[in-house]
């Protein structure tokens, strides 16, 4: 398996999904070597071998700034031009070199590559060792760029990887559609395998502590409704529309508090937008949070909104469901294909989102129904099923390797 990150050295959902999938696969009898582009300890992983492809520290796997770059470059490419900064392309190149020289030691039957980061290495391995390549699409560049064009180089790599792959796994029907429409891959080459909630997430003995956000607890007791969203503040997440909808909703129901948990390049814009719309008092920015503080946000919220313009899957929605939030999802999110006990809207439809927020805030019956029903529902997708589907795809691909 070729991946770019594994917990605890992850920045988002990709690492979590890879870990859970690998764990479930090993339970189904798969022997996995997971190759990562950095050197670090993974204390919780004992079911597979994690193999470092470079001797970099994990924080530089997406490249580094100009300050530390020279030092780093020397570390991995001693002959490099000293004026250059370390970019993600350099890390990828080293990753490929490692695959080219060392992969055969492990004699893989199938190569499973996660996202564009590892597609080049995957293609290389396929060519060199004649093992079938499975390209797993967690997100495309179109998703990340909010359905705008994005980075042409990344498109090129994605296109090449998708073309060369024997089979493609997409995390939702909407991702499958994007792969078909934007990259012109025949539909029968793409299988949909939905993600599930992190196993550790459910198991860990978390208890909600309302003192973490005392202010919000106080507001709630005064009849306010807490609405949260969690994620990177990037164009993909559609937060501008959400903010406009928040202002519309507040005009009908003033006791609404919106919590934007996360960070990203749009943060300052969003803060000033909230002020421009006159709802600065109704919006809280928490900054980047994780772990218990993140869970406390889910726990204290009544409503969780996923406002993404395009969201291949949307794991945070399952996390919020686990903590009993009522969900409002854009129809453009993969998770809305499998979760029925949720309100949905089109990402541009600010008025409908406002409507849904006000309706849930004003009607206890609606809020309770949504919260109860989704809690019973989100468990229906499990990693065991994910692994079973992957195994089936592996076996079919091995059988028809020549094609």
């Amino acid at each position, binding site marked *: 398996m070729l991946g770019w990150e594994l917990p605890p050295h992850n920045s988002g959902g990709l690492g979590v999904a890879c870990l859970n999938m690998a764990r479930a696969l090993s339970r189904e009898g798969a022997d996995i070597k997971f190759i990562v582009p950095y050197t670090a300890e993974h204390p919780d992983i004992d079911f597979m071998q994690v193999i470092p492809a470079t001797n970099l520290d994990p924080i530089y796997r997406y490249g580094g700034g100009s300050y530390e770059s020279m030092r780093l470059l020397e570390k991995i490419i001693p002959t490099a031009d000293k004026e250059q900064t370390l970019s993600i392309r350099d890390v990828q190149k080293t990753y490929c070199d490692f695959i080219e020289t060392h992969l055969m030691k492990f004699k893989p039957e199938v190569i499973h590559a996660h996202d564009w980061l590892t597609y080049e290495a995957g293609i290389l391995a396929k060519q060199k060792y004649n093992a079938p390549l499975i390209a797993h699409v967690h997100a495309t560049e179109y998703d990340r760029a909010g359905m705008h064009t994005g980075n042409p180089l990344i498109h090129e790599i994605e296109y090449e990887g998708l073309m060369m792959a024997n089979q493609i796994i997409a995390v939702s029907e909407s991702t499958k559609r994007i792969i078909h429409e934007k990259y012109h891959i025949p539909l029968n080459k793409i299988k949909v395998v939905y993600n599930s909630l992190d196993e550790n997430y459910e198991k860990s003995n978390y208890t909600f502590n309302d003192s973490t956000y005392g202010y919000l607890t106080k507001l709630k007791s005064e009849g306010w409704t807490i609405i949260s969203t969690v994620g990177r503040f990037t164009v993909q997440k559609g937060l501008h529309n959400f903010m406009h909808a928040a202002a519309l909703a507040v005009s*009908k129901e003033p006791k609404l508090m919106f919590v934007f948990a996360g960070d990203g390049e749009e943060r300052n814009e969003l803060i000033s937008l909230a002020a421009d719309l006159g709802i600065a008092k109704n919006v809280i920015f928490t900054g980047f949070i994780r772990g218990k503080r993140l869970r406390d946000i889910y726990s204290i919220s009544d409503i969780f909104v996923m406002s993404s313009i395009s969201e291949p899957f949307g794991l945070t929605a399952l996390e919020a469901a686990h903590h009993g939030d009522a969900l409002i999802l854009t129809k453009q999110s993969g998770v809305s294909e499998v979760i029925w006990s949720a309100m949905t809207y089109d990402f541009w439809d600010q008025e409908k989102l406002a409507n849904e927020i006000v309706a849930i805030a004003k009607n206890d019956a609606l809020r309770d129904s949504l919260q109860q029903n989704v809690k019973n529902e989100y468990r229906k997708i499990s990693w065991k099923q994910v692994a079973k589907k992957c195994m089936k795809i592996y076996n079919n691909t091995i059988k028809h390797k020549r094609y």
Partner: protein
Amino acid sequence: MRAICLYLHIHQPLRYREYSIFDVGVDSNYFHDQYNGRQSNERIFRKVADKSYYPMLNLLLDNMKIRPGFKVSFSITGTWLEQAEKWGPELIDIIREMVSRGQAEIVDETYYHSLAYFYNLDEFTAQVKMHSEKIQQLFGVTPKVFRNTEFAYNDSLAKWAEDHGYEGILAEGWDKVLGWRSSNHVYRPTGCQNIKLLLKNYRLSDDIAFRFSNRSWGEWPLTVPKYQNWLDMDSLRGNLINLFMDFETFGEHQWKDTGIFDFMNTLISSWLSVYENKFVTVSEACNLEPPVDEISMPETVTWADTERDLSAWLSNSMQNSAMQNLYDMRDQVLATNDLGLISDWRNMTTSDHPYSMCTKYWNDGDVHAYFSAYASPYESFMYYMNVLRDIEYRIKNNPL
């Protein structure tokens, strides 16, 4: 003598559109979605009229003209009649012709197809009276047999119907109530003296209404000789076979290309070709024989789902709170004397509305989801409550 009592239920709700919180207090148009909208009553009515109402009513009338012994009973809701007056007045003319030929009987029910009986008896009585008057006005007859919305029936309802002078009342012939007894007889409800109880033969009714086109059904394809053989066998248990179903079974639930119209056409002539067979209307059925036994249903029984209870309409908290809020407003609404407001409020009592908020099988995407005009039960509830808010606003701002 063996008799089929064919009874068809004709109904369309007046669907509320996706009524936004931003419309409340601004625009009180609840029921007129744009023509291509998901909740466009006109579009849906015209579609069903073409697929089902026109072809089936014409089929029935043609048969009546050739075969004087062929008779049908209808229950027609006020909400359907109002829409037909606007978008298909010829449909009413066809039914009127059948009635005047003496080959069709109209059954009474609530004007708005509501579950008012379970919330407010005054409202229920008022809606039944409205319906009875509407039928008199359009068809010149006064109904003598009663059915409640969704066949929701219990002993106290039977008593109510008797007290209001009905000869008969219709209900589901559910096994749990009947036990070894057959639905093919006339019964008397417990606690009543004169009124007759007719029970739906749900197996033979559902063979046509639900299973007819189901290819995974062991008996598919259903042919007339096969079905008539079942009718013959079943009439050994009693001479009266009550086939009660939705009118839209013909053409809408079972599409034309399943052969449902040909099946019905052939069945009518084939059944009547045997000298001892006939068709009866509901009030004729009531007088077919003296009641053979007394039937008691202390708990409410309906004709829906495997549970045969009200849970599809009134079980989850959204449905309960929607209905409670609605009926709590009644006195204030009536006090305004604003006829437009009263009619809007009454249109919100239609049982299809809480049905579209049913979450019972929602996750499985079954029949409830298929028949819903809304994207989800949650959205349906949201728009419903927005409408109630606007009604509340209108009450407060009424000039009186």
